[in-house]
């Protein structure tokens, strides 16, 4: 499903060169739930961004769904992200000026779908995360756990094959974190969605199929 080969990421300034990812090769199977762990600054989020085509590697290649993403144009990359990938962030990244339903509809706006279809899919996604009674609320009227559930609904509304979650439980207490984790596990089990999750939490990581540990940009496990 996802094949990373000899991925290297170097950040350069005028005077300093920082190696964020050092020669990582990784295969992730379809339907796998993978967690990435490691200390702060070890390159977890950078790796996730590279897999999510939000950042480009300095060296190496990525194939997702048998497609070489290095040859994608900006338009193709955007289309690929929209159709194949779903993102969940630690800080939710909801648009506070839009209602919950409008937030969830967002990915569908970059596709050709009717307003009715968008509304239906967004409502279904919110039902899946147990927020069908909060459609007209604004994000700042919701708790942290509810906001993250909205973010999950937004990630799954376009029925992507892969979900990339960057510390989805990082801002939540353990009870809320477990709720979110249960939703992700169900998505992986029931829908066969491939999930790659960056986390600091060992307990959460052990709930996934496989754990990858990074240290100073290199894979150590």
């Amino acid at each position: 499903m996802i094949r990373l080969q000899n991925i290297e990421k170097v950040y350069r300034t005028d005077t300093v060169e920082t190696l964020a990812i050092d020669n990582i090769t990784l295969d992730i199977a379809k339907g796998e739930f993978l967690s990435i762990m490691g200390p702060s600054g070890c390159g977890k989020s950078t790796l996730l961004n590279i897999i999510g085509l939000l950042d480009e590697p300095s060296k190496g290649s990525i194939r997702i769904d048998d497609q070489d993403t290095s040859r994608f144009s900006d338009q193709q990359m955007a289309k690929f992200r929209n159709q194949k990938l779903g993102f969940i962030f630690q800080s939710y990244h909801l648009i506070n000026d839009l209602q919950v339903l409008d937030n969830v509809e967002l990915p569908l706006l970059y596709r050709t779908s009717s307003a009715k279809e968008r509304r239906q899919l967004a409502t279904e996604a919110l039902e899946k995360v147990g927020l069908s009674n909060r459609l007209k609320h604004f994000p700042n009227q919701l708790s942290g756990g509810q906001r993250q559930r909205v973010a999950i609904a937004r990630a799954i509304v376009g029925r992507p094959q892969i979900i990339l979650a960057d510390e989805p439980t990082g801002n939540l207490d353990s009870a809320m974190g477990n709720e979110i984790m249960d939703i992700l596990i169900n998505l992986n089990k029931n829908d066969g969605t491939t999930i790659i999750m960056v986390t600091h939490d060992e307990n959460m990581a052990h709930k996934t199929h496989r754990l990858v540990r990074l240290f100073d940009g290199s894979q150590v496990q």
Partner: protein
Amino acid sequence: MIKHLFTLIWNKRKHNVLFLSEILISFLVIFAVFSMFVFYYLNYVKPSGFEYERVWSISYNNPLKTKDKDTLATFYKQVRSTLTALPQIEELSFSSHNYPYSNSISTSGFSYKDKKLIGVNFFQTDEDYCKVLGINVIEGRWFKKEDGLMKNNYMIINASLKKAMFGNETAIGKYTGEDKDENRSLIIGVIDDVKTTGDYWPAGQSMYKMVDSGAYEWLGIMLLKVSKDADAAFESRLSKILAKAIPNSNIEIKHLTETRESKNSDTVIPVIICSIIAGFLIINVALGLFGVLWYNINQRRGEIGLRRAIGASGSSISSQLVAESMLLATLSLIVGFFFAIQFPLLSVFNVPPQVYLIALLMAIAFIYLLVIVCSLYPGRQAAAIHPAIALHEE
């Protein structure tokens, strides 16, 4: 997408008040300036209706104390003969003080059956006025010498007055005023509109009457059509001849080309001043819009990063920001349009409605252009925001 953007704008309306106000105020100012431009331009492109080249005006005071018509007529006949004997003078006409480009105006009422008009320009001239100024007669004829001798009360009107009073019917042979009115005039001719107040002002509605010999007592203007070889030396000689012919009189010779320039300057200079002020305002508004959009983009880096992550390309981010600005501008323009449309509907300042309508369309187009220009660069900068960095910042 438009509905989505509209929802976003509506939900952020409080944040957008500054942008909306800026656009509304600039639209109203630009509408006013464009109305002025269009009004002057539409008048400017219309023909002046007469020839001002090689036409000199001579102002004088009547030196004779007598009110006797025959004495006056004889005196001014002598003056006319003296001047027309000069080879450089092709035509000569006596006129009331409101000759073209002068600072005098004379207006009167005009009525025909039930229709009445006020503020109609009223000119008193003689049979040679038309020849001196090269005025084109559209219908009927200009005054003849005999018209002044006979008891007929003849009148000539211009095309605008004819259109206002008679529409498509002929005006020739019609009497002004009511049937019982003893002083009613017979219309004998219709001439082209003559722009007497400058190139940038409308000719307005005008009527012309022939002066009788008694008018020499107060007439103070002679108009001369001079030949091409009438130079400064001739002007000096003419001045001396006039001083002799009309003794004890303040004589002043002016060239209509110069009075025209002076008259036009009276219009153009305020327009230039207004344009400079409006130009500075537009620059300020443009910088303001640019700043507001730039600020908005910096405030929305997280949102932009998110949109990139969920499927927006760089160009669609750029287009979205331009489209948002255009929608905001549209909201302001709807409010501005409501105010601006009152001008043509109520014919404010007696300006033709088409002037306001053209200015309205131009102002709308200008505002959209301004908004596009001001939002293109911030839009491009937004498109260049690296999603991974923007999302990390949040």
